[in-house]
């Protein structure tokens, strides 16, 4: 592997490294662009738990939309509990306010027996739409996100994949 690296001309090597950097920055900018377009800090999320079964299974990919925040009852929102950074995908079952007042939401997982009051922060009984909610689910692709669950459960896979990607980009010759 290093033999073939050494065989490259310095100019060629630099071009390959730049190429790799271009791939990374394109991916990053696509993600950030989508973020701006949807007005959501995380426009694509992967379902991590079975609390919305049978609608969403672990590993399903969800597309979020966060413009026009008049969230209605029955919509599925992704929110972060105050003080914790775990996104939760659940369905809105009550809404109060909106318009000139802040919009409060109560959520429940389709597959949970009780609503989410227990999950919220200690002194919180409703979600604040503008502060807590990341976006509302508009699109669905099954199973594709399972890769990211594998990557977070087996960290060595992440390293292996990065090394493989870097090596294949640098070593590929046109």
């Amino acid at each position, binding site marked *: 592997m290093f033999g073939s690296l050494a065989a490259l001309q310095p100019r060629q090597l630099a071009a390959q490294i730049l190429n790799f950097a271009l791939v990374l920055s394109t991916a990053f900018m696509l993600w950030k662009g989508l973020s701006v377009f949807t007005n959501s800090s995380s426009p694509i999320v992967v379902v991590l738990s079975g609390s919305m079964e049978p609608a969403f299974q672990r590993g399903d990919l969800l597309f979020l939309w966060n413009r026009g925040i008049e969230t209605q009852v029955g919509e599925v929102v992704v929110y972060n509990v105050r003080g914790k950074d775990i996104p939760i995908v659940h369905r809105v079952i009550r809404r109060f306010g909106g318009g000139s007042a802040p919009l409060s939401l109560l959520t429940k997982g389709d597959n*949970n027996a009780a609503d989410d009051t227990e999950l919220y922060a200690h002194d919180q009984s409703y979600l604040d739409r503008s502060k807590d909610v990341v976006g509302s689910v508009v699109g*669905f692709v099954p199973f594709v996100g399972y890769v990211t669950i594998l990557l977070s459960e087996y960290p060595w896979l992440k390293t292996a994949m990065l090394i493989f990607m870097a090596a294949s980009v640098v070593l590929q010759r046109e």
Partner: protein
Amino acid sequence: MHNTLTRVQNVFGFFTSVAFAVAAGIAMSVLLSPQAPSASLELKNVQVVKGRPHYYSTKREEYAHVKFDLDADLTSLFNWNTKQLYLSITASYPSSDPSTIPPSEAVIWDAIIPSDYAPLHPNTYIHPASKAKKSAKPKKKESGKPYPAGGSPGIVRLENQKPKYQITDVSGKIAKRGNATLSLHWNVQPWVGALVWTNKNSIGRWQGLQGGEAKFDFPPLKGTEVKKDDLKTETGGERNRGSPA
């Protein structure tokens, strides 16, 4: 150029582009399938009593208990890309300042109706068999379908249905609020593609929902004369799991 790695990369790249194109085609094709949902929804009974948000709470709030009749034909919402239908009955009532704040809304009953092709899941709605049919013949072994024999997903006929949720306002007061509406909502969950919610207006081949609304007023607070039996709620298929997970 033609080593194993590039071959594998090419095959994988081709596979993903074909899979993406097929998925996009399936997602778009639902627009071609005609829809004509209709429903008739009626309020059966509404009572308002004092209660607590949960067992250990000392807070006393007013809770409304709404019973309803529903006769809905939503079979046309089940096309080949429908995985399930989330059906809900909601009560909405004017906010404290109706000119600037939209009405408040709360779900009183919901159900998950799977399509014929969805794998069995404990958390799906099992439609109660009609009384006439039950007396006619003792039921044979269920076919594993979540609705009675001869029925199809999307036909929902409920009489004097108990709510799943007793509802309250954010202020804790819900008695004597006028101008409330009971309405039917749905969310079509596809196998792949966009989620679709209730539409009242016709768009292309999709007709809007006909009916599915009932006006009512919340009555004054009742005291101890209400029997506990009258305030029972129904538990859904999600009872198979414990507290939020």
